[in-house]
């Protein structure tokens, strides 16, 4: 007996599922008991539940609303940074690079207001924090993925959950190391600790796709010492994960605000404080240009992440 392809019981399709127009192949596995199915089909057709009619539109509606809220301001900010004026409903007077020139400090605007020294300083600090993270994060990730040991769960929790929020760490830091708090060293160490979970997690997910024990043992049996096996065989195998961790920790450290705001004093001004100054008391379009600089950094980071096969800033395992 053959079930018609347009069996009415499948009409309102799978739940959660793909809609019938998109995936008719879902019918194939319910051929048995078609008579029974046809019977219930009429009942179902008579009392169509509300969720059949509304479920999918509502869920898609929520998705669209969330997308609107998340994306529209980003696009608007970026686009308005090229506009001349923004007094009406929409920015007008395209295209000008004036605001970009202003925040980057080119032209006749004077040196104090510009972003270049801050950007350079932040690049240096974020890079140092990232390198320190490689030194401490990669070994911890390896120990957690390769060995079973006492208190492993505790170490794991400590390593992958940020210990304290940046504001609190900043205050504590300032009192503990008053003379070093605002220095580059203080910022490097603070950024490193605050962003280390991203490094540990990313590298860990890379290690978990490898047979670490076999790899380590074959390298050892071929005569490599343990440090040599790690440095020349295992870590190079995980280089994608390490690279991805580097990019994520670098980008997030470059814009870390809460900790910097609490700790930093003096010159040069880190990039996140430059952003803060622009957001809290600069003309709208100039703020837009300053923020757009950061958007460009993030987009660049995401593009690099995608070329090395990582999905973006997510550390969720595949």
């Amino acid at each position, binding site marked *: 007996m053959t079930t018609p392809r347009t069996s009415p019981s499948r009409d309102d399709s799978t739940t959660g599922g793909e809609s019938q127009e998109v995936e008719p192949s879902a019918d194939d596995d319910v051929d048995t008991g078609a008579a029974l199915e046809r019977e219930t089909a009429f009942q179902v057709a008579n009392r169509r539940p509300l969720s059949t009619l509304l479920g999918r539109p509502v*869920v*898609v509606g929520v998705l669209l609303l969330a997308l609107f809220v998340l994306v529209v301001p980003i696009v608007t900010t970026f686009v308005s940074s090229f506009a001349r004026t923004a007094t009406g409903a929409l920015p007008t007077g395209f295209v000008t690079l004036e605001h970009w020139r202003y925040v980057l400090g080119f032209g006749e605007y004077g040196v104090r207001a510009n972003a270049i020294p801050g950007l350079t300083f932040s690049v240096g600090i974020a890079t140092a924090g990232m390198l320190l993270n490689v030194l401490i994060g990669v070994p911890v990730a390896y120990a957690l993925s390769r060995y079973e040991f006492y208190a492993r769960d505790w170490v*794991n929790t400590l390593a992958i959950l940020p210990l304290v929020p940046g*504001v609190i760490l900043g205050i504590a830091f300032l*009192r503990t190391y008053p003379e070093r708090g605002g220095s580059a060293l203080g910022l490097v160490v603070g950024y490193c600790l605050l962003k280390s979970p991203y490094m540990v997690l990313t590298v860990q997910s890379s290690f978990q796709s490898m047979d670490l024990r076999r790899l380590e043992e074959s390298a050892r049996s071929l005569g490599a010492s343990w440090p040599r096996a790690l440095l020349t065989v295992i870590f190079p195998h995980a280089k994608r994960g390490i690279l991805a961790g580097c990019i994520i920790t670098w980008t997030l450290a470059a814009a870390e605000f809460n900790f910097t705001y609490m700790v930093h004093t003096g010159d040069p001004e880190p990039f996140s404080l430059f952003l803060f100054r622009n957001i809290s008391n600069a003309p709208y379009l100039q703020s837009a240009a300053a923020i757009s600089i950061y958007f460009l950094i*993030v987009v660049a980071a995401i593009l690099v992440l995608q070329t090395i096969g990582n999905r973006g800033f997510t550390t*969720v395992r595949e």
Partner: protein
Amino acid sequence: MSVRLSIGDSIRQALSSVHTVVFPTTERERERRRIAIMTIPFFALAIFAGFVPLATMLRMSLSEERLFNEGWSVDAWETLATDRTYWWIGFNTLWFAAAATLVSVAIGVAVAHALEKYSLPFERVIVAAVSFPIALPGIVVAFMVVVLLGRQGLLTQTVAFFSGQSTIDLATATTIGGLFLGYVYSLIPRATMILRGTYAEVNTDAEEAARSLGASPFETFRHVTLPEIRPGIVAAAILVFRSALAIFGTVLILQGGFVVVTLRIDRELAVGFNSQIAGAIGVVYVAFLIAFTFIGLRFVRAEQVAI
């Protein structure tokens, strides 16, 4: 013979285990040494940059002097315990973070559901757009709220255009509503990230069976899908609530007459440099966060609430 070791014995035992880690003789001991070598740099950093400062912060809350840790005084803790203002700030922080968590996780479920269950056009673009804000710091999120709800904001201007009211009256960026949007803006991407991972593991056979037995889409979601994604929802709630408590930059810029703990700490330091009170609030806050995390982790695996 007593079963308990004397202090001398315990010390000797500890020393000998340190000795075997430093000078291992068996393979098991060598492995222990390796684990120690690999985890010690991390602990050194965590102690230097994390635990020592936190201990100093506790000492700071008990200090008599404002500028240095000198003398002992429990005044700050007394103020914290008796002054109703602080209780209200704590309560405000909790309910606001809880409400933002609830909304964000609910939206996260819908977004993850739509992405994993329906075949939508431009799915990769949508995924990228939803995860992009994870990289935005709180101050940038605040500006995003201003772009939507500020005086020149898109929504403000649209409503003003249709209703004829003045944009100054309509602007809501620096009210509690704007602040809530700012919270939700930073939290939705995190909730979605975790829930998409959970949805990817859901067994679709049970859903199809329920549907073919005549369950409505909602009934199927309620009785089949929801129990399967419940661990993901709990994990997302833990992570999102933790993040919501730590939000500072957004509040600092939007303010909105609403004081949460992080902002109050900043105010204590900015006005009058009440470092003892700031330290005491910080200690309570960290203690709460750690307790919450460990209680929360009893329900899910640690990896699920990562970041």
